[in-house]
């Protein structure tokens, strides 16, 4: 029994220590953000790396979700005699929840692992030390640029996932029962307000913050050799996915309260 208590206490201790280190890291990044130089060129490189290179995967995931949702929902709605509600059900489901969370999870897999592995490898080969030794702040040059790129690109990637989801939902529907895209969209957005669209899309900026912050943090604290790099990449994906899901639950509640 005492050994169980000891391991639980050790686990809690470890978690609190990790959280404290993360807070310190976030503070260092925030402090570096307000100082010159602003690393515009590196930020643009990261926007390309994180944004445009994630686009195909995010678009594919959105398309698959849209097609599957359309096929699955059609069957259920026909049973309840609500077939005409399909476009609205699909559009609401994609723009309010499925699009944002799928984008968050896909990007946390692709980008989280990439950042964790890249920075981890730089850490163990002393490249981060070399950056610091040459008088450049690695918190700004490496972490801040990646975090900001994630924050800016996630909402845009979500728009792409939403669009592909609705488009392929329509394609799946029109293969069963032909309907024009314009009519599908008109029926889909009946009663939709701007807040239905805006708040869920912009909550992915928080997902971007989580993915960028955890990826950079895990990468820059890598210890050991290749095993350490592997651990950083894996833990970046696991932790950022976990925190994206937790943040989604909290933000959905928040959005329902403030944007009813």
């Amino acid at each position, binding site marked *: 029994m005492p050994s169980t208590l000891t391991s639980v206490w050790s686990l809690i201790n470890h978690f609190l220590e990790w959280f404290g280190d993360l807070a310190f890291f976030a503070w260092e990044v925030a402090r570096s953000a307000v*100082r010159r*130089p602003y690393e515009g060129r590196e930020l643009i490189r990261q926007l390309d790396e994180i944004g445009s290179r994630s686009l195909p995967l995010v678009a594919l995931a959105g398309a698959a979700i849209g097609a599957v949702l359309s096929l699955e929902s059609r069957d259920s709605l026909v049973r309840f005699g609500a077939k005409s509600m399909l476009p609205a059900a699909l559009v609401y489901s994609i723009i309010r929840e499925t699009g944002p969370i799928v984008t968050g999870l896909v990007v946390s897999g692709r980008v989280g692992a990439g950042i964790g592995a890249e920075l981890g490898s730089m850490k163990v*080969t*002393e*490249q981060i030390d*070399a950056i610091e*030794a*040459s*008088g450049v702040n690695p918190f700004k040059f490496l972490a801040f640029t990646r975090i900001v790129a994630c924050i800016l690109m996630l909402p845009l990637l979500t728009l792409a996932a939403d669009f592909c989801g609705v488009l392929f939902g329509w394609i799946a529907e029109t293969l069963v029962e032909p309907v024009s895209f314009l009519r599908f969209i008109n029926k889909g957005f009946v009663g939709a307000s701007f807040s239905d669209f805006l708040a869920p899309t912009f909550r992915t900026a928080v997902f971007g913050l989580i993915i960028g912050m955890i990826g950079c943090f895990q990468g820059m604290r890598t210890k050991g050799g290749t095993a350490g790099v592997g651990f950083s990449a894996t833990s970046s994906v696991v932790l950022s996915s976990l925190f994206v899901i937790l943040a989604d639950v909290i933000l959905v509640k928040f959005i329902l309260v403030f944007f009813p």
Partner: protein
Amino acid sequence: MRHPEQKTLLAGEESAATPAIESAGGKSDGPAVILRGLHKSFDSQIVLDGIDLTVEDGETLAVLGRSGTGKSVLLKLIIGLQKPDSGSICIHGQEITLLHLDAMNEIRKKMGFLFQQAALYDSLTVEQNVAFPLKRHTKMTKSERGDRVKELLASVGMEGDLKKMPSDLSGGMQKRVGLARALALDPGILLLDEPTAGLDPITSGEIDELILKLQAEHDMASIVVTHDLHSAKTIADRLALLHEGKVQIEGSFKELEKSDNEFVAEFLKRDS
């Protein structure tokens, strides 16, 4: 509360009378590096236990010692990658242990650091690696920067490898590029961490000759951490032998040879 930019006068160090760092490479009238009472531990392991060393401008000090005696840690303390537990580090008369990041970065621009494994940025070409500090800290135009990079790479015999990636280079070539990058901002102090480690004797000799040539050209203070006694003898004016966290002996190679200290005799015998 001390202002971060405040310069410190060390007791008993009349030459450290805090002149401003102005000239190219940050040189001043006093010694380039003064270490006093430097302590560093990792958990319960004491690595450095009261290190006192001084390196004058234009002088090369080789720091010798067994593996794990804190030689590399010493260099990382000097360039501010790690903080000492206690003690003082003066770079050209300026105490750096309490400096904030921006001020420390200004000091770092005046120092060049060659890492043990060269630590070249593996996503950048040789040319981009050497241009990195120039791009960050100078207002050179692209063509001026290109010329400076070519000049630096020519000085280390790598002018034909501008477009190569670090992974395409041998260990010796990576060290050469690392040296060129360390010299990019014309530093007043050069810190070399095991410059010949992992290299064959011929390449080690070439690196030693290169370091001697560059020291003569740039007139820098250098601290070379090594366990290669032959290399230390070739490139250093003075040697300091670390053991159990302390400087066991400091002086010329001949002075070390004359020492009756048991560890010094054993170290020299094993390495000769």
